[in-house]
């Protein structure tokens, strides 16, 4: 008399079960679709950047053999080691020597298309190696940016003809431009470099990290472990959360009003930029730090207290080491944001044209994102590729920074 179907096998149950499985499949598919979409966008971004940027790491160069034996330039190595060596070479007529040999090799028209500061590259080579003055050497010198775009097939017809002619004679070619990573900003896209901005970014990040990390971590520790829970700490908590959401340009205004008021002579300096960005990064570190500290199980604190550790020992021997990976994650996010920040730095004058890399925390500098912003504003077509190349450098810097932080985080995590 066992006619009854068990409840598992009723049609209604089967239908419900089917629906549940379908819902799960749908959910999984949406998840995969979301990930695919972001992967495609990311890939698109990286591919376009790379394709554009590859050109930025190259430049059109004219091949010019220079015979120094009859140029009459003095090759005293001690004089060339002096700081004013470049001026001295200029006085001795190096620019006209270079122009002379360029005219011989490329013709008058071709020589006119030599980049304006091309002789400086010859000068730098001589300073590096004075023995060059005893013989003849072939230099690859930057072409003017007009000739460079003519080589790409843009600009006036006569220049395009000239470029094609020179290229056919193997006197004009694009070469990998390692100097891009060593030079600084310039007005001619053929002669710009990213090193000045990169160094500015590095110095600024050092200041930001040195200020924001200790202050942020200590604030988080105090608020979580020591501060009494009352109206004042609630107020502080709300304020910190609000600070993290304040538009970055406001911090720039603050830096302008406060820091530049205290240090009026340090306009555009990485020190001031770093301090401004530290203000912006600190709330992020405090918030993530508090969450990481909150996540340390209370039983660990109890265990340490119960064998007679003082509150400071509990914090520094147990809580902080366990919370450190989480704090580092927050720091990565905060620092990555600071690295990509432009607006507050514009306010404190880090958008200036700086042709020499900063030689310290207090000398004028610019940073990578500001440099990108400045180049993207230029009219000269040659800057388009340079801008992409700078973006690639910025992304690589970000990658290295995050990689380092992740390495550190994993190292601390393995410890226990």
């Amino acid at each position, binding site marked *: 008399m066992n006619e009854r179907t068990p409840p598992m096998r009723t049609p209604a149950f089967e239908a419900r079960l089917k629906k549940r499985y379908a819902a799960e499949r749908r959910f999984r598919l949406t998840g995969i679709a979301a990930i695919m979409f972001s992967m495609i966008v990311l890939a698109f971004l990286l591919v376009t950047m790379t394709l554009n940027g590859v050109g930025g790491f190259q430049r059109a160069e004219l091949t010019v053999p220079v015979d120094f034996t009859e140029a009459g330039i003095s090759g005293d190595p001690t004089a060339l080691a002096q700081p004013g060596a470049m001026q001295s070479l200029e006085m001795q007529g190096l620019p006209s020597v270079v122009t002379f040999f360029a005219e011989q090799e490329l013709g008058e028209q071709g020589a006119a298309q030599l980049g304006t500061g091309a002789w400086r590259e010859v000068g730098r080579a001589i300073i590096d190696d004075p023995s060059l003055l005893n013989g003849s050497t072939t230099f690859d010198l930057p072409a003017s940016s007009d000739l460079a775009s003519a080589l790409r097939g843009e600009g006036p017809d006569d220049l395009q003809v000239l470029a094609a002619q020179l290229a056919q004679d193997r006197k004009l070619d694009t070469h990998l431009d390692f100097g891009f990573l060593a030079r600084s900003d310039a007005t001619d896209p053929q002669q710009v470099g990213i090193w000045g901005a990169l160094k500015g970014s590095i110095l600024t990040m050092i200041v930001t990290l040195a200020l924001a990390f200790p202050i942020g971590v200590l604030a988080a520790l105090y608020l979580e472990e020591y501060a009494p829970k009352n109206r004042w700490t609630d107020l502080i908590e709300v304020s910190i959360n609000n600070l993290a959401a304040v538009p970055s340009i406001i911090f720039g205004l603050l830096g302008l009003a406060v820091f530049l008021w205290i240090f009026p002579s340090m306009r555009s300096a990485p020190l001031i930029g770093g301090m401004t960005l530290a203000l912006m990064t600190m709330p992020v570190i405090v918030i993530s730090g508090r969450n990481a500290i909150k996540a340390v199980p209370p039983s660990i604190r109890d265990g340490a207290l119960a064998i007679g*550790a003082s509150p400071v020992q509990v914090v520094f021997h147990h809580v902080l080491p366990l919370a450190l990976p989480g704090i580092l994650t927050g720091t990565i996010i905060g620092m990555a944001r600071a690295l990509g920040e432009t607006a507050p730095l514009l306010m404190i004058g880090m958008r200036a044209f700086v042709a020499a890399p900063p030689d310290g925390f207090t000398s004028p500098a610019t940073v990578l994102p500001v440099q990108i912003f400045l180049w993207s504003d230029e009219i000269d077509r040659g800057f388009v590729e340079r801008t992409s190349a700078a973006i690639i450098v910025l992304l690589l810097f970000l990658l290295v920074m995050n990689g380092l932080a992740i390495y550190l985080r994993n190292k601390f995590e393995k410890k226990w």
Partner: protein
Amino acid sequence: MVTVVHPNLEDTEAKMSARDVSVFYGDKMAIDNVSIDIPTKYVTAFIGPSGCGKSTFLRTLNRMNDTIPLARVEGEILLDGDDIYRSKMDVVQLRARVGMVFQKPNPFPKSIYENIAYGPRIHGLAEGKQELDAIVETSLQRAGLWNEVKDRLEDSGTALSGGQQQRLCIARAIAVDPEVILMDEPCSALDPIATAKIEELIDELNGRYAIVIVTHSMQQAARVSQRTAFFHLGKMVEYGRTSDIFTNPLEERTKDYITGRYG
């Protein structure tokens, strides 16, 4: 209503004494006027239904309640005649003298060696590495864990089984050479075999340290303790020799609890 204290406790030499202790969480009274002598040479068990305040009272004995912002303690608790709640009492020193083992094993996420060595190190109990090694070995031996871990002292303490972790915590408490060990339901997260080992360990430690154990299990109280206090609704209802409490309770509520009528 006052606590019924059995009259035959004359031989009790008190290590700790509570005098009219009340504990408040904000406005709520968690412990109501408890007075008890904790004997030096015996294991004292606190039993009672959930929420009766036995754990709260245990935590007042080494001032672990200080970590709870709203908790307030009235009355006095004496350790060798000194009031531990007096303003000049050094809490760090107190907790070195009155150790504690918790409900859930909570070894530090460090090596087994570091777990034991941490206490002696912060209290400066060892001169040099050899002495520290000796303390680690003795503590682990007393906790009955030495033979199981002697070859892997550098392994993480959290990689041990639950029962081993709890014995590691007991060894950690022993390592700072306390006078009293408080145990807050030390076996509630363990299986019967691990529980038996811990009970055996409590038996061995009995006499060397004054031990106070909070337990949900009446059988456990009967097995390991010589003195039992029954708590109910924040009050201590009855206190006496364990044998008397279980065979001859004087209070109706105690009788109801140990016969399983509630709890």
